[in-house]
């Protein structure tokens, strides 16, 4: 396994995670995209060393790179592309609605957290 690729995967993951945990939706999209890159590179790295393109007749089979992870990776690229586009559309809509692209806290969760500090409401066993 190539150390260079291994470190590239680690670096992409780290930067991706850092961006993903920000509050700006555009950075979250960037982070998501980088994590996608890390994953596809990890897939083909796990599949074996570099080689000739796996095209029958162009190279001896033993010199080829492993085609199976490549087929899987192709799917991964396409699906992560679809999800990234969807995220972008969501972010654009958020911007249209609120004027910026910041991820707000979930109000429902906030409310649940606030109940704890407020007066306790007894649960209603009869509601069952």
């Amino acid at each position, binding site marked *: 396994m190539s150390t260079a*690729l291994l470190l590239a995967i680690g670096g992409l993951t780290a930067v991706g995670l850092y961006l993903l945990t920000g509050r700006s939706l555009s950075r979250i999209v960037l982070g998501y995209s980088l994590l996608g890159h890390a994953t596809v*590179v990890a897939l083909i*790295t796990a599949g074996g060393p570099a080689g000739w393109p*796996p095209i029958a007749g162009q190279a001896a089979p033993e010199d080829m790179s*492993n085609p199976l992870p490549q087929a899987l990776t192709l799917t991964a690229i396409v699906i992560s592309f679809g999800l990234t586009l969807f995220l972008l559309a969501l972010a654009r809509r958020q911007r249209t609605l609120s004027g910026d692209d910041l991820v707000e806290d979930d109000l429902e969760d906030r409310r649940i957290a606030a109940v704890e500090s407020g007066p306790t409401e007894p649960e209603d066993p009869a509601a069952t």
Partner: protein
Amino acid sequence: MIFGLLVLHVAVCAVLACAGRRLGRSSLLVGAVPPALSALWGTARLGDGSAATADLTWVSGLDLAMTFRVDAFAGIMTLIVSGIGVLVFVYAFGYFGPGAARTGRFATTLLAFSTSMLGLVWADSVWTLFVFWELTSVTSFLLVGHKSTDTEVLVAARRALMVTAGGGLVLLAGLLLVTGAAGTTLISELAPVDGTAATVGAVLVMIAAATKSAQVPFHPWLPGAMVAPTPVSAYLHAATMVKAGVVLVAVAGPALSGIGAWKGCGLAFGAVSVLWGALGALRHRDAKLILAWGTISQLGMLITLFSVGTPTAVLAAVSLLVAHALFKGALFLIVGEIDVRAGTRHIDELGGLARSMPVTFAAATLAGLSMAGAPPLFGFVAKETAIKAALELDGPEAWIVGLGVIGGSVLTVAYTARFLVAVFGPGPETPLSARRHALSAPPAVLAVGGLAAFAALGPLDAVLGPAAVRLSGGAQVEHLHRWPGLEPALAVSAVVLVVGAIVGLAMGGRPGQAPADHAARWTDAAIDGTVALGRATVARVQHGSLPVYLVTMAAVATLAATPFLADISLDHLVGWHTPLQGVLAATVVGAAAALCFIGTRLGAGLALGAAGITVAALFVIHGAPDLALTQLLVEAAIVVGFVLAFGHLSRSFPMAGLRWRTVRIAVAGLGGAAVVIGLGAASGNPVGAPPLAELAAASVDEGGGSNIVNVILTDIRGLDTLGEVLVLATVALGVQALARAGAGREGSAS
């Protein structure tokens, strides 16, 4: 037959759930049909020496199966559960009166409980037992909370649920340990076990039994549950559900009685509850609470006797189990009748009932005498056998059991005498409403049952004997005697009756205050504490901030990689496959790192494109031209999309606080390291060379193409690729919808 009866119960339950509203009060009579059939089946089987079995395997490898086995003991329990069930359904018909609300719902829940209880006593697999055990807790909760508009009722129902459901969790842990040690999940196949795990498991099972059977210190839920309608109190909290713990101790006894801690725990719970329960029954002034505290005491006696586990003790316990179901069921129903007709059940407000309710008084006297253990009633036989069992023991056990059984018997006689005198004794006559036969007949049947059992002791002994043999692990068991002859136990009995009667009659008419129930307050405080802890935990972990959720998840996932640290081998690592790979790897990390520092969105989009194109170049030198082409196309589209979505927000990115940014950087760094560690460890375990030659040949011969990756995508897994196309199409629809919705809003706003 077993499954047939269970299915019938469930089916009638479903019918009542749907049609209960329309049937109203008569749904109680419909609900009595399945228990009646079960009781008939149980009666028909009484002489049968063999056990009826039924099972339905779910996951055979995990021993997950619905397994039922109706042996001699389960047969007796069937009669108690279903026989008393029928009487309680009939009684409830009278109890609720024509205009009562929600009787359909009540009948449904009561039948659901009856079904769960049958399943519990029939269960042979411990997991079947566990499921029905929990179902009885839930149905009990619903029945206790039947009058759900009252705060006191709600608190009581919650207490009953929390204590018994908490006990259920303890039971699950205990059963896991015990079955693990025993190597079987079938109760009938449990052999004596020992060892640390089995000991811990046995103690947990005993604790679970103590919660269900309301043993001190878990008892406060039972007096609290008296807020339920009386049919529920009589059925669940006297005759059946509270016996579930006793049944568990009984059936697990043969396997666990060799464990010292099991016996010690059982004796401690039992002896303390016998005395404390009886003292409570002597002090309370609500007739129903007197009976409830008496039940705690009687259950303590049952737990004590089953924990001792000697053949005589087990025989006494089985007899007492039957006797208790008869007399306590009858007494509860009688108190319910008084409550309905007199409008109160407080002993200070009742008077002259012996004259105004003669039939009820006769039934109460019969049941009371049986409870006190006086001849000629079945309670006498049970009590006599219990005293004999206590006198047979020696060592410290003899003292504890002796104190529990004999001391408990004295107190039982005392509170029985006090109960009868206080409820039926002289006093200003209480005005009564009209008599209802459905209310007075069932308790009379149960009370006479105690007399009949004494009269027909021979046949009854033939039924109880085999059950006792089964529960004492196959030991020789004596016969029950109507008249034991002049022996020490009889003398003790006589003393018990005389002393108890003097104490009870002396206390009977005395005015006083009901004791404050501190234990109930502590239990509620513990439950409130648990709820508050739950709330605080939710508030802490579910605070609504997406970044914090993500950081937490990443941190946890990172921890999962730690075990792989040991597996890292550097043998399979090379620096790079070609120097260019090293350069490109450095470039992609550099472009990614730049994303963290670039302040404008346009610049960020360009850096993202650079990273993507570098990844494409990495694909090229790896020998994956298809990937590279796809990556280039995708990347171009994403950069365009990014600029379209964000490009004109020229404001730079908002900055977070320094401390939070440090946490993010730390977690991100650790996350990256975790991935490197995981992949590095995986590279130490290569799965072997891929079958490249076969793939290449098959690609040409069968797929009709020389590009192997393409053949895999379009031929070997063509259906997956079709799905992928569908995903893309769906995304396109979603993106378009989102974009249009946003545009419309924008347009109308401007």
